[in-house]
């Protein structure tokens, strides 16, 4: 029986898709490819026969001129001729009727003697909206809650007698964070894809998202979804089996996959970026998530749920927060220097202005934290119940400032830093004169 079960589980480890709709299997030119001369034709290869619609394929330049000729179906392919193309970036938009009568649609980009821009910067895409900022903020919050709750349990409360009820609450908080991260990840990916595809909702449901999945944002979405699904399962099993050790891999995974947010942001693709900036961004996000998440969990769950642990937890958190703040500030200052070529960019550029707001909020949080560290901590031993209750409220206040910092960070990740004055610029323009994101 056990052997049978093992074989069945191995068989289940190889999932695949379930789709009755036509699936685009390959294109010529390929997604995101730089070609040296005008491709004679655009060819879409599907996994089954499709019917073509008028204007099935459009090849659009940066101002929306269409260079594609009439389309025709050839077996499982759809082909359109292309008029000569000048140097530049191009967007291909296509649609076809699949065998099950659904209209399937998609978009991808290529470049003629210039690197192809990201599909998120395809012609017609408007860029991140307020809704996307909000969703990304929720993504940050979910990640911070997971990392913070797990960090509180594994680092701050390490070796202490933790009441079972508090353990349960911490597991619920970590699991809730993972669920929020999963849901907001799906929402963020959908919003980004909707912007690139430029389709009404009915058609968007059958839109091909594969080119989006191939972008950095798509890769981050896929890896973070898998990572946080695993984190959710581990947190649940840790609570179910009463094994705190299972939280260790969950904590490590959530810290590791928090880096997906930096991989998906502008920092990873803008001129001047390197492995150092990616590492710094990961340190910045992970340390900030742990700091804010652990603070919020301690204020919301521990302070009023386990009063006997307040003093010890506060002292330990204070030590951990000092290290985390050093990491957040070091990485943040380094990234600001790399991203802002001139000091005046801070108040003249949109990116700099958002950064200034973030710095202001961080200063408030730091001042509040310093008050806790230098004033409250020494007074903790002789504190009465009333004082401790007020401290709990103060911790909640500091947490709210931290949550506001995450909102500004979400806007910042979606914003584009000012271009660096470099000699050999490889940027290509597709949308409204803004530099297009490069790279796969």
């Amino acid at each position, binding site marked *: 029986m056990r052997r049978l079960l093992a074989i069945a589980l191995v068989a289940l480890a190889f999932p*695949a*898709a379930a*789709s009755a*709709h036509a699936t685009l299997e390959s294109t010529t030119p390929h997604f995101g490819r730089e070609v040296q001369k005008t491709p004679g034709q655009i060819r879409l290869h599907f*996994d089954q026969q499709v019917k073509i619609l008028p204007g099935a394929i459009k090849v659009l330049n940066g101002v929306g001129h269409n260079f594609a000729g009439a389309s025709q179906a050839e077996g499982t392919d759809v082909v359109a001729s292309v008029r000569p193309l000048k140097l530049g970036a191009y967007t291909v938009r296509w649609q076809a009727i699949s065998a099950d009568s659904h209209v399937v649609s998609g978009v991808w980009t290529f470049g003629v003697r210039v690197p192809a821009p990201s599909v998120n910067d395809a012609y017609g895409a408007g860029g991140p909206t307020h809704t996307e900022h909000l969703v990304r903020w929720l993504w940050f919050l979910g990640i911070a809650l997971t990392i913070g709750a797990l960090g509180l349990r594994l680092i701050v409360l390490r070796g202490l007698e933790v009441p079972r009820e508090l353990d349960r609450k911490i597991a619920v908080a970590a699991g809730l964070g993972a669920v929020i991260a999963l849901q907001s990840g799906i929402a963020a990916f*959908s919003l980004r894809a909707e912007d690139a595809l430029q389709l009404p909702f009915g058609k*968007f449901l059958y839109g091909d998202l594969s080119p989006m999945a191939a972008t950095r944002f798509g890769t981050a979405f896929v890896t973070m979804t898998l990572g946080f699904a695993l984190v959710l399962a581990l947190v649940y099993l840790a609570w179910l089996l009463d094994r705190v050790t299972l939280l260790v891999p969950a904590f490590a995974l959530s810290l590791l996959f928090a880096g997906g947010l930096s991989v998906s942001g502008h920092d990873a693709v803008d001129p001047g970026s390197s492995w150092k900036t990616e590492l710094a961004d990961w340190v910045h996000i992970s340390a900030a998530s742990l700091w804010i998440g652990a603070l919020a969990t301690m204020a919301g769950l521990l302070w009023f749920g386990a009063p006997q642990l307040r003093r010890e937890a506060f002292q330990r958190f204070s030590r951990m927060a000092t290290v985390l703040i050093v990491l957040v500030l070091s990485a943040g200052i380094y990234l600001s220097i790399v991203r802002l070529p001139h000091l005046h960019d801070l108040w003249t550029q949109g990116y700099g202005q958002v950064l200034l707001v973030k710095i202001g909020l961080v200063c408030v949080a730091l001042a509040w934290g310093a008050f806790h560290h230098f004033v409250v901590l020494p007074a903790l031993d002789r504190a009465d119940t009333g004082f401790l209750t007020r401290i709990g409220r103060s911790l909640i206040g500091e947490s709210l400032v931290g949550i506001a910092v995450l909102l500004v960070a979400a806007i910042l990740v979606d914003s584009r830093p000012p271009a660096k004055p470099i000699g050999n610029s490889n940027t290509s323009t597709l949308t409204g004169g803004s530099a297009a994101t490069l790279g796969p």
Partner: protein
Amino acid sequence: MLPHAEMVHWAFAAGILLVGLCLLCEAVVGEEVWHMRPWRKYLWPGLAFGLGVLLWPVMAFFTNSSIHMYAHGSWAEVLMLAGGAELGLVHGRLRSPLWRLTWPLAFVVTGTAFIVHEQNPWFFARSAFLHHLLGWTFVVAAIFPLLLVWRPRSAVLQACFALTIVTVSVMLFSDRDVAPIFGHLSPLAGAPHR
């Protein structure tokens, strides 16, 4: 390099069949006998939870249409929720039998996702027919786990619940035109597709 669409149906059909057979065994021999070996009580809830976790890669990797992504995501979530709740109950970490309401919820959500994501008429093709059948089977059969919340010892309800799961797995095994059994039935239904 992704495997073909039918493979996922067969892989998950195999997993669901195992869940159904375990449930059927438990219904036939009774809970006391089934739980004589401690690991057996975790078998089908653990399988259901594991299938839910394994549905996440399907959701994340297969992005050929938005609606499939949402359908796979909703199945992953409800299967993890219902399997997790059952694990909690058999392990004793959860006490309230109302947690078993997650199963009718999972059935209704799964059925709705099947019906919504297949927008062709019933007789368009075998795949469309079976997707409708799967959807409505889940929605209608949600009555069995719902009644089990209040009549947990009813052998008839347990057997109906188990047989529903087994039936669903058989449908999943055969709902593709390229299946080796019940292959493409008629050219009148158009070209075979996945």
